[in-house]
């Protein structure tokens, strides 16, 4: 008997049964299993493993005689009704066709929704990180996520995962720090995330703005105390790149030759130098004198002077 046929029959049987069924009851009904004994149990274990890997929520119910019986809870098996309209279906289908996550095309997900999948123009490819699915799963199950971040154990009530500027972040309430925190997913030690018990995390606060908690870009330094105002001249040709990096509001002067002057408020000279290095010899920091001196001193060290 084809394994796929047997698996399909097991799902139909356990979805519709009025009481949990034992291994022998399942095997006798569905057929295709070896005669009683260890080899039958081993064959059933393999089927169980495949079913679970395919997302079938197989429940084990302990019996009074110490044995086990099985059922599938329809509430866990079926997706709650989505009631998508036709245009919503088409829009979702197109989105899936256009976006690729490290080879995962989302097609399987559409199949599960009872949709076929169409081809469409490619729009975007996003990377994934180890642990990302588990973090998302924790949000979905309202479970806490446990991981080690730069050597420190963390317990997080996950509020969501967010992608910006090429990286994934996870946001939530850090139980140890008693505070809302944001972590870079690619910096979780070994990408290992353990998901706790369902429903034990505090739910995401209503109206929580996931995109709003993302950090600014490295050069978009947030206003804080201890700000230094610096002026940088950027050569023509590199100006458009600088405006895309920073935003129009940072430009204080545009010259006829196409070069621009930008004003930044920096909190960290290290971060500022790193940003300015990106422009190589096409940008010059002009003020204040302390920042210019600091930059030149570092360059002299790098030049081996």
């Amino acid at each position, binding site marked *: 008997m084809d394994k796929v046929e047997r698996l399909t029959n097991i799902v139909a049987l356990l979805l519709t049964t009025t009481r949990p069924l034992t291994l022998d009851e399942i095997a006798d009904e569905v057929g295709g299993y070896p005669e009683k004994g260890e080899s039958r149990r081993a064959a059933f274990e393999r089927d169980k493993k495949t079913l679970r890997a395919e997302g079938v929520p197989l429940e084990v119910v302990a019996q009074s005689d110490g044995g086990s019986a099985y059922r599938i809870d329809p509430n866990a098996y079926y*997706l709650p009704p989505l009631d*998508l309209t036709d245009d919503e279906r088409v829009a979702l289908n197109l989105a899936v066709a256009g976006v690729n996550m490290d080879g995962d095309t989302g097609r399987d997900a559409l199949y*599960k929704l009872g949709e076929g999948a169409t081809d469409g123009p490619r*729009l975007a490819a996003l990377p994934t990180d180890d642990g990302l699915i588990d973090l998302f799963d924790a949000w979905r199950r309202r479970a806490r996520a446990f991981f080690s971040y730069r050597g420190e154990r963390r317990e997080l009530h996950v509020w969501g995962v967010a992608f910006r500027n090429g990286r994934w972040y996870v946001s939530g309430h850090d139980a140890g720090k008693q505070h809302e925190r944001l972590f870079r997913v690619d910096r979780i030690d070994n990408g290992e995330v353990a998901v706790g018990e369902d429903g034990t995390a505090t739910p*995401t606060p209503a109206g*929580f703005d*996931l995109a709003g908690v993302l950090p600014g870009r490295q050069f978009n330094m947030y206003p804080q105390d201890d700000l230094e105002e610096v002026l940088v001249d950027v050569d023509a040709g590199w100006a458009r790149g600088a405006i895309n990096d920073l935003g129009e509001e940072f430009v204080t002067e545009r010259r006829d030759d196409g070069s621009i002057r930008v004003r930044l408020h920096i909190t960290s000279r290290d971060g500022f130098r790193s940003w300015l290095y990106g422009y*190589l010899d096409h940008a010059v920091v002009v003020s204040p004198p302390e920042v210019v001196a600091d930059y030149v001193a570092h360059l002299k060290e*790098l*030049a081996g002077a």
Partner: protein
Amino acid sequence: MPDRDPGLRFRRLLAMVTWLAARENAKLSEIAEQFAMTEEDVERDLMLVSMCGLPPYSPDQLIDVLIIDDVVEARIPEYFHRPRQLTANDALSLLTAGRTQLAVPGADQSGPLARALDKLSDALGGASGGVAVELDAPLLLDDVQRAADRVEQIEITHYSAARDAISTRTVDPISVFNDAGHWYLEAFCHQADKVLTFRVDRIERVTPTGKAPARPKKSQQKGHVQPAPGADTDTVTITVGPHGRWVTENYPVEQLDELKSGKLRITLTVSGEAFLDRLLLRLGPDVVVNRPAAKKDALAQAAKRILARYSE
């Protein structure tokens, strides 16, 4: 070729059954297209479906499938009508795909896709949180996208970070896409006489030439944009203190050795000299280029070029 993976076949089979349940009948060719299978494989799987059902597996308890003249008629039992719950992986890829599409500048934030995602998010974990995606919005994205949509030849002034040079090129746009947060224009470049990929946020100016493109090209873009080893790339090996670990987190590293001294020896492919210069400047004075020999002085040279701007 029949799929050998029983998990995959099982998954597709349940999906096909649910898809059929929503329709009275469907053409074999239509099912094959929807599920990216051959018609033979669809037929084989449908035969298998017709042997499934409930005990005692008598004809009235089996799933009724008829194939007449390439048209499939199926009576699917109630228990296979409703879609299955999504796994975390499924749900994440659906929500991410949708949120990415909505993050494209100009996307309709209250249209059908936004409504579909709200319903999906609600059914999964709740109305707030979940997945958010933000993409760059470079100034000229609209212009570039419009040229690609209309297949118009354009002249672009573009800054190549790898070569650290500005050039003006005549290009025939093929596609505009986002890879790992950045927007790219894939286009046939007349100067280079081949298809090139340009970062949209490094495009300084876009001017339509008014000419029709030489010939339409099909997008070759499949995976991530990555420097392919070739004329413009170089494999370098550097040694740096433990503070340089961020390099391994930010770039595809070919080899990483942790030395007894605590230092890191990193081998990676760099595209263009300017890329290497930036990397070395950011790593600081203790970085050493081991290979190739020609790049041993790259850091000092780069620093001296910048310093020259301060002695004017």
